């Protein structure tokens, strides 16, 4: 079967304006968008750049915009897309080259929310800390995040204000704030309550639409806000 892909191209070294290249390639039914990109890179134009690794939606490398929707391209079957397929880099992150975007700032935002367990009591020696299954459940839907960036890239609050931590970092914040083993809310209030923190989110839900792992960053943000309101008022 033949399919046509319209692929966003940009190379800072050539000085050429960003543009789209169209490739018509032979594909198999079982292929995903990533398979098609590989086919292009391997047999048509080796200079096409994009990230990929695991091929089954766990590493978070391959998030791109496909026909206007953010997808983990390795998990998006071609058969689910009609007509010409447009592949573009994730919106609102600076494009490095072709489909690769700069995510340094995205990872820096994660660092800012102190994504590690903060607990000032020494853990028991030779034992685990105890946590009930119910308590453990509180953070379900947060720790599964693959940090692909699809959510933050789709968030209008982030487009308007690139300082905003964004849904992925806030989801991560709740991953720890919500963990009953964690005592670090105090240390995180500063950043969460800041001008770039939770209050910048306008519950637009684009992040939920965009997440290829069907996670709900908005739910996490909302819970963080409740914790902060309790804390402050």
């Amino acid at each position, binding site marked *: 079967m033949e399919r046509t892909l319209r692929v966003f191209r940009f190379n800072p070294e050539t000085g050429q304006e960003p543009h789209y290249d169209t490739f018509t390639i032979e594909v198999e039914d079982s292929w995903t968008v990533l398979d098609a990109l590989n086919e292009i890179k391997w047999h048509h134009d080796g200079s096409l750049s994009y990230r990929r690794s695991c091929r089954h939606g*766990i590493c978070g490398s391959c998030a791109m915009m496909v026909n206007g929707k953010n997808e983990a391209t390795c998990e998006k079957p071609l058969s689910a897309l009609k007509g010409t397929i447009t592949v573009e880099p994730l919106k609102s992150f600076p494009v490095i080259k072709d489909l690769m975007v700069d995510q340094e700032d995205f990872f820096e935002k994660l660092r800012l929310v102190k994504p590690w367990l903060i607990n000032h009591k020494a*853990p028991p020696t030779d034992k685990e800390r105890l946590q009930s299954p119910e308590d453990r459940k509180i953070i379900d839907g947060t720790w599964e995040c693959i940090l692909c960036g699809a959510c933050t890239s789709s968030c209008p609050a982030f487009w308007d204000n690139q300082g905003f931590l964004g849904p992925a970092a806030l989801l991560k914040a709740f991953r720890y704030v919500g963990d009953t083993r964690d005592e670090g809310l105090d240390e995180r209030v500063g950043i969460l309550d800041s001008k770039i923190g939770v209050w910048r989110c306008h519950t637009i839900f684009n992040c939920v639409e965009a997440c290829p792992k069907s996670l709900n960053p908005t739910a996490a943000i909302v819970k963080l806000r409740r914790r902060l309101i309790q804390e402050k008022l």
Partner: protein
Amino acid sequence: MKLDVTYHKHDVVVVGAGIAGLYAALKTSGEVDTAVISKVYPTRSHSGAAQGGCAASLGNMMEDHWEWHMYDTVRGSDYLGDQDAQALLVRDAVQVMYEMEHLGVPFDRTEEGRIAQRPFGGHFGNFGKSPMKRSCYAADRTGHAQLHALYEQCVKNEVRFYNEFYSLLLIMKGGTCLGLVAWDIIRGGLHVFHAKAVHLATGGYARCWKITSNAMANTGDGLALVMRQGLPLEDMEFVQFHPTGVWKHGMLVSEAARGEGGYLTNDKGERFMKEYAKEKMELAPRDVVSRAVQTEINEGRGIGGQDCVHIDLRHLGKEKILTRLPQVRELALKFLGRDMITDPVPIQPTAHYSMGGIPVNLDTLVLGDSQKGTVPGLYASGECACVSVHGANRLGTNSTLECAVFGRLGGLKMLDYVRQHSGHEDLPADAAEMAREEIEHLLSTAGTKSGVRSADLRTRLQETMSENMAVYRNQGDLEKQVKICQELREQCRQVAIDDGGLCANTDLIEAVELGHMLDYSYVIARCALERTECRGAHWRTDHPGRNDKEWLKHTMAWLEGDHVRLEYKPVVITRFQPEERKY
């Protein structure tokens, strides 16, 4: 073109940010200046794909002892594992698992609030007698949970990360490792990392097969780097094939699908496992099932004569599939468009885990010969290394454990080493030269249309590896594969790339990776050709049966130009004498 070289100095440089590399870095960070170089963002490392769990005899669900765990590991390895290393692995397992919990890994919990554990293939109680719940897990995303927690701890400890940096070359002087040269993938440019200790944790390398569960980044760079310094690799012929890879893609259909009662059927709709393992049927060990599936395919009973058989869950009912196996169902839906509730799903064996690798001693120090000689300053752990705890065949859930135990240990050992060495030894003047030549040469081929495409060579390598040395091997096929590898290594010199730029040039990286893959694939083929017995994952149809008299020994292989030199070294046996491996 003359490429820029940037110099960096750190006490410890870890290459690889999977569970092994991050654990090593975590242990040295905060104490000494630690850097991690990774060709993908740390959280994108393939450790994140590990699903089933991580073994440790915590005994949270039922009585368990490290001796039992050791027995299973020894037997699983088909007695090729070194028992001193295996003892260390299973004893440290308990402590390390608690430590990972303390670091924040969100393990599932028992009603009492302890780490939950579940059964997994090959793990038993009471020396192989009763089923055992030993695998600590976080849903079916255990590796992901561990990887992220470790990364975040490293960030906390202010480990210096060089993300999307690709290591090209080790810097050695007088048999000591002084650092390495890496390529900045995003911006371009060579970087020399001057270090007191280098730790390789570059992960698995089953990418040289066409059908594989491994990530595209799993190209065995660490192995090639070591071999290019005239150092050996160990037990390269042992690569585990998982029976249920998604047809044509290779991603894993979790073992749970068979655990819950899934059937394997051939073109005639028969449950063919009755021909191979009458009692255990689909629940026989991985290698047995893989061979059964492959035989069906080879003998023309694949679905529609193609290279796949079916895994059939329909009889389990919608309810059970939706509650117990939602991930598996989703996988088949996404990649094959098949709903397991109404359709059987095509699968085929997939190259999964590499037991061999860079030989290291119990301190994770890299070995330079087949005796006990080591390479000061050079360490390795994780899937790229071979201590050897997995011998000829790895047990499920023992691998992330190996990464954690030996990554951690490696960190501690490097700390000792670095503390004993106050200054950095001077680098040789031409430290980056070889790497510079390689890169400048490849960049200069850009646009010369006469060259060979690296993708074509890689495809040929992957297809022939799957054809000639997958589940079943024999002398004829292996000889063929050795020759093909030689030819491909020859042709590789003619590779020309399309992209001559410095910025995010993944064309260049793929070409370098191809060179690495060809080197170690060649070694795998040579080692496999030599080993004339069946042991663990290495199955020679022309040499049935395990042959302890001649082959109870590790293979050590040197790549010397176009030639592979082999030596052998004894297996460390302390406690459990080799017996027939029966399940």
